């Protein structure tokens, strides 16, 4: 059905909301990628099957939603309107939920979230600390709607911002975005309004609006969740952007490794086109804007703007110098605005609620909210969105619940391979663009990897180097040859083969790569190295000079042994060892056989009595135990 005018849109929204209100209750089953991997599809099916028979009785509908964010506890089920959150739901729990909670009105304590410190069970999802501290803008509808249900999205406010925008002049829209202070959520943090304005002022009849959905940082998945869970928010932002800059074509560049995002976006575009929100004469305004999807082939470098545009042109996705901005000469050398998925998702809300509303959140220079993927050694891994300026401590401890197994916190890596590691001393750092950059890291894609004391910082830097070595396109010398040589030096360091002067060589090469590389991939590639050198230089020295890994991670430098006085023969290490290097009977002393041991540390992590310790390999060798 085509919606011809703003009035017709309001009517349509009203009827969609009325239809929703008829439902007595809803079962929201998280069908984000994390929960699906944990079996959410079967849970949703079980609900649908059980409720279909009794739908008339309880008037409850099953809804397959996008990612709720609390991936650690999935599959997640939220019962509305009560807002009860059930975690780790199995298909076999479904009948009990229907009988006891939906029909009987009583909660099932076993399925409620248990607060780890107090042991208290929390009933409502808004009360769970993980959700309590969040403010969701870009992800405002995710988890509440079925991303494939157009009416559901409309009832929850989708395209409300677009209706407002089309009632304003493009200049007024630009000013609203300017007031909001929105900056690029892809990580670089360039002012969105300034970018739009340059493109609006650029000469040319044909202009492009692009969406960067090539999220490729290890540990980042916020763009994925937005595209999967609320694709209309992305479309809405792009149409508004097109109106503001005077473009009529939009392209979403999605990596092909995100199949569900491609499916949901494709469907959303079709729905929006059928409703007259995409295509000719949108809502009777006379404005035309079309959107299509282009699937990326999986090269990390194609997330870089100039490479992304080459890829869209059908050429090899390699960056080129950007002395002329894309807003003047971008895709096909025509004026182009490229924004990140999250940026586009913010735009609709900004137009809906006003720029001042958005600017009221955040810090002086970084306004609004920011989505993060919180992962690593943290209790509550998942997807979060919070106002800028929250401290790392609040994020990791209040929302994240602290370090896994209550181990000591060591560092948090932000910004993916282009970012850096922030140490414990800076835990009270308010998170915004400037503060993270000052700390030697960056906002980047919003990946946040928490690391505990069992993390070797040299090994971490090496991990990111290895990732980038594989992803460097190889066009320019500093990135191609520099990463290759840098990785070789790190391979030597973690294997105890470091040579005198290696640290200085690494620093010099880092500087050369930062200054000399063609694109941001190469320029920022040394960031993980530089930041770990800045805060954990002693670990580098230990690896290089003493051939020791202080965290006991680098296998070539570490060995494990069982302390006889503490071992109670519980047999846990025996079970944990993947190579059968441990022998011992239950209630007897266990022994690690060094000839078989691969120093993986599984026994150390499994031992309940801390009877296993690690020590530098050379110490054991000195004792004559080879």
């Amino acid at each position, binding site marked *: 059905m085509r919606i011809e005018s703003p009035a017709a849109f309001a009517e349509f929204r009203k009827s969609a909301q009325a239809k929703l209100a008829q439902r007595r209750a809803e079962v929201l089953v998280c069908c984000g990628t994390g929960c699906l991997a944990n079996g959410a599809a079967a849970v949703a099916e079980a609900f649908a099957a059980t409720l279909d028979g009794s739908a008339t009785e309880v008037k409850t509908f099953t809804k397959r939603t996008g990612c709720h964010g609390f991936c650690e506890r999935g599959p997640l089920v939220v019962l509305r309107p009560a807002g009860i959150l059930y975690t780790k739901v199995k298909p076999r729990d479904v009948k009990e939920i229907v009988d006891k909670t939906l029909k009987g009105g009583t909660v099932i304590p076993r399925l409620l979230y248990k607060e780890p410190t107090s042991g208290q069970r929390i009933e409502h999802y808004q009360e769970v600390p993980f959700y309590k501290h969040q403010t969701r803008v870009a992800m405002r509808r995710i988890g509440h709607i079925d991303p494939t249900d157009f009416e559901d999205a409309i009832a929850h406010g989708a395209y409300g911002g677009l209706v407002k925008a089309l009632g304003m002049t493009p200049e007024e829209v630009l000013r609203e975005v300017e007031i909001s202070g929105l900056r690029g959520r892809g990580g670089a943090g360039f002012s969105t309004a300034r970018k739009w304005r340059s493109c609006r002022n650029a000469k040319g009849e044909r202009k492009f609006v692009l969406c960067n959905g090539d999220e490729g940082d290890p540990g980042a998945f916020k763009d994925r969740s937005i595209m999967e869970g609320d694709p209309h928010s992305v479309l809405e932002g792009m149409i508004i952007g097109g109106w503001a800059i005077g473009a009529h074509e939009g392209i979403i560049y999605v990596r092909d490794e995100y199949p569900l995002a491609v499916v949901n976006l494709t469907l959303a575009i079709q729905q929006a086109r059928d409703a007259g929100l995409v295509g000719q004469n949108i809502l009777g305004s006379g404005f035309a804007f079309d959107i299509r999807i282009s699937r990326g082939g999986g090269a990390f470098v194609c997330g870089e703007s100039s490479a992304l545009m080459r890829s869209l042109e059908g050429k090899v996705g390699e960056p080129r*110098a950007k002395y002329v901005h894309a807003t003047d000469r971008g895709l096909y050398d025509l004026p182009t605005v490229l924004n990140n998925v999250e940026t586009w998702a913010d735009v609709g809300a900004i137009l809906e609620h006003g720029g001042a509303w958005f600017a009221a959140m955040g810090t002086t220079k970084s306004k609004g909210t920011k989505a993060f993927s919180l992962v690593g050694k943290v209790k509550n891994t998942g997807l979060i969105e919070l106002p800028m300026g929250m401290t790392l401590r609040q994020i990791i401890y209040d929302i994240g619940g602290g370090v896994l197994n209550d181990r000591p916190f060591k560092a948090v890596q932000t910004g993916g391979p282009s970012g850096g590691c922030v140490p414990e001393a800076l835990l009270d750092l308010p998170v915004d663009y400037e503060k993270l950059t000052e700390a030697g890291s960056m906002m980047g894609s919003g990946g946040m990897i928490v690391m505990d004391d069992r993390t070797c910082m040299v090994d971490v830097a090496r991990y990111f180097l290895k990732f980038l070595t594989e*992803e*460097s396109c*190889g*066009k320019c*010398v500093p990135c191609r*040859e520099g990463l290759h040589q840098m990785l070789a030096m790190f391979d030597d360091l973690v294997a105890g083969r470091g040579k005198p002067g290696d640290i200085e060589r690494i620093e010099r090469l880092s500087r*050369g790569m930062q200054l000399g590389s063609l694109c941001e991939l190469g320029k920022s590639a040394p960031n993980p190295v530089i930041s770990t050198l800045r805060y954990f230089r002693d670990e580098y020295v230990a690896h290089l000079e003493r051939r020791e890994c202080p965290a006991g991670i680098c296998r070539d430098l570490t060995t494990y042994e069982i302390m006889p006085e503490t071992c109670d023969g519980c047999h846990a290490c025996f079970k944990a060892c993947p190579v059968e290097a441990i022998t011992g009977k239950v209630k007897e002393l266990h022994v690690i056989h060094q000839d078989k041991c691969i120093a993986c540390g599984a026994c150390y992590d499994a031992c309940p009595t801390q009877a296993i310790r690690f020590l530098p390999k050379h110490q054991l060798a000195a004792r004559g135990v080879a």
Partner: protein
Amino acid sequence: MSIENSGKPVTLTIDGKPVQAHSGEFLLAVAQRAGITIPTLCHHPALEPYGGCRLCVVDVTEEGWDGWCKMVIACQFPVKEGIIAFTASERVIETRRVVLDLLLARCPDTPLIQRLAREYGIEKTSYVPNPNPTDCILCALCTRVCDHIGVSAIATVNRGIGREVAPPYHQPPPDCIGCLACAEICPTDYIPYTTSSTSRTIWGKSFEMLRCPTCGRAHITVEQARHFAGHGGVSEDYFTTCDACKRKQMAGTFQRLQGVLPAAAPPAR
């Protein structure tokens, strides 16, 4: 910065020296004209700038930037009024040194790289020398010239350190016309080929040669004549006579017209 490709006259400063140019011109060309040398490896005046070797890095600043410099590559940086460029600042030299040091590790036996590295004070690479030394510096001049003449028989393939120049699937390239432009433009003579009076081989593909009916020299491949005839809108026959003989014939025609030589039967084409 917006594009100012208007070509209006501008004045800029390179290494303290005022230089006239037109806005939008590339800094490298402007500097060269002013007699200032900036090293390059992947640059060729006949081809679009590429920006791969990073050897032509220079520092650029402007009035009001408070001394802050940004590092750019001269081959691709469009000049505008008032910019101040430093082609040999300390960090420019240091960046070039890192680049050459890395290239010397990749190509330890390549004379061109050895010479450039030595100019920057590097006798031996500080990195691990390539266990399989190559002369290919991946400047992509070969692939770009091949694209430029409309053939695109070869390309750079693979990513990162595995990048190389190759014909499709490492098979003799069907589109290659055997013109040798890639081999001729290669700054390190890395691309091997053989050519004789009857045939030519490059990239594993063999070509039949056309002989000049006048001097008998095998000067062009059949595919080359066909390709250029197709592009130039002339008949393939135009390419049978070699350039040298064509020049001689033309000179003769002029001389006869001027009465220096007696009229003769028109030369066979």
